[in-house]
């Protein structure tokens, strides 16, 4: 930007006048709101300016575009997204199909090892459940994320999938995640399609894939 940035630590009038647009749109808060309201009570120039800004806001809102039907542009956009999807999918795993099996087997072995150790260390106490308690069954998936994926992105994918991480990352960069069995298939497909995910395999032997 070529313009100078004005500093607004000047007089109360200057500061209040600069803030008037946000008094008009109702977003001014706390000290700024108090400052402007107090100043307005005694400044005729700012009262006139406020009236003009309210007219300006009303005119802006009235200056509407004609309504349109969103379905045609949405259809066009869907076609564009479909084309982009085909072009942009990371292809590293596809070019090395054996890698998926290696990672899945590695993750399965590590998970079994972990489960065995946990079983060994667990005290022999019976588990009790209340009558109302429901057991939510889950399935385990092996997931490999793109190395460039951010922690925030990973967390959001987990949240969107109602998944939690059980184990990982392995040396090959794989994670084992647990998802509700009821929609494991949907989650698996969604993760496979998600950007930043290179591989998703089911750890269950009866997966059918």
């Amino acid at each position, binding site marked *: 930007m*070529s*313009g100078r*940035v004005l500093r607004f630590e000047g007089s109360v009038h200057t500061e209040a006048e600069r803030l008037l647009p946000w008094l*008009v749109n*109702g*977003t001014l808060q706390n000290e700024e709101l108090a400052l402007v309201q107090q100043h307005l009570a005694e400044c005729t120039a700012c009262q006139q300016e406020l009236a003009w800004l309210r007219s300006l806001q009303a005119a802006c809102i009235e200056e509407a575009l004609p309504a349109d039907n969103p379905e045609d542009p949405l259809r066009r956009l869907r076609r564009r997204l479909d084309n*982009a999807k085909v072009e942009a999918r990371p292809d590293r795993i596809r070019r090395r199909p054996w890698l998926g099996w290696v990672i899945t087997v590695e993750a399965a072995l590590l998970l079994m090892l972990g489960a065995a150790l946990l079983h060994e260390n667990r005290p022999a106490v019976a588990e009790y459940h209340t009558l109302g308690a429901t057991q939510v069954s889950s399935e385990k998936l092996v997931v490999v994320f793109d190395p460039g994926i951010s922690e925030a992105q990973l967390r959001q994918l987990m949240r969107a999938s109602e998944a939690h991480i059980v184990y990982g990352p392995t040396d090959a960069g794989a994670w084992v995640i647990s998802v509700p069995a009821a929609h494991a298939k949907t989650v698996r497909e*969604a993760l496979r399609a998600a950007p930043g995910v290179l591989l998703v395999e089911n750890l269950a032997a009866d997966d059918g894939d």
Partner: protein
Amino acid sequence: MRIADNHGHAGLHGNAEEAEYALLMRIAAEDMRAFEMLYRAYRPRLRRFIAGIVRQPALVEEILDDTMMVVWHKAHTCNHQAKVSTWIFAIAWRQAVHALRRNDDRFEPGDDEHVSSSEPGPDIELQQCELQRHLGTALAGLSTEQRAVIELTYYLGYACREIAQIMDCPVDTVKTRMFYARRKLKTLLALTREEAI
């Protein structure tokens, strides 16, 4: 789910904001139905915002599509710190600036230093209908950045701090742009009125 009232005002609280964020997370998992819902909810406001900035009908759809493409591909990067709408309008602003620069440099940066310092007197107080009639012409005389600040404040109802987030600039810069936009609008409206007489 809201996602905004007819004037597109930015106030969105609690559950509605959470619902909008949940929708975005579904889009991160490539849920096309969620994307369609978001598109339908945001299209009127985005279209109006972009049209207000670029003032070139032929570019509006292109920028809107580019914006929603970025929303689809980058939904996972929206952290919950900012409002979803702020995140989306920030994308739209960047896409509009890129498009204007791509198209023969029609991006008009702020011309703050060249605005006359003489404030028009109180005689420019136009009646509401007169303001309404000449506003479009006067807005066309502002810089792209000034028009964006006007749209984001008066039509979309954003706070100064949120506009700074959308335009990726300091809060003082937003105040400066608004200050010069108001002054220039008054001058342009007065000129337009004189020409009309």
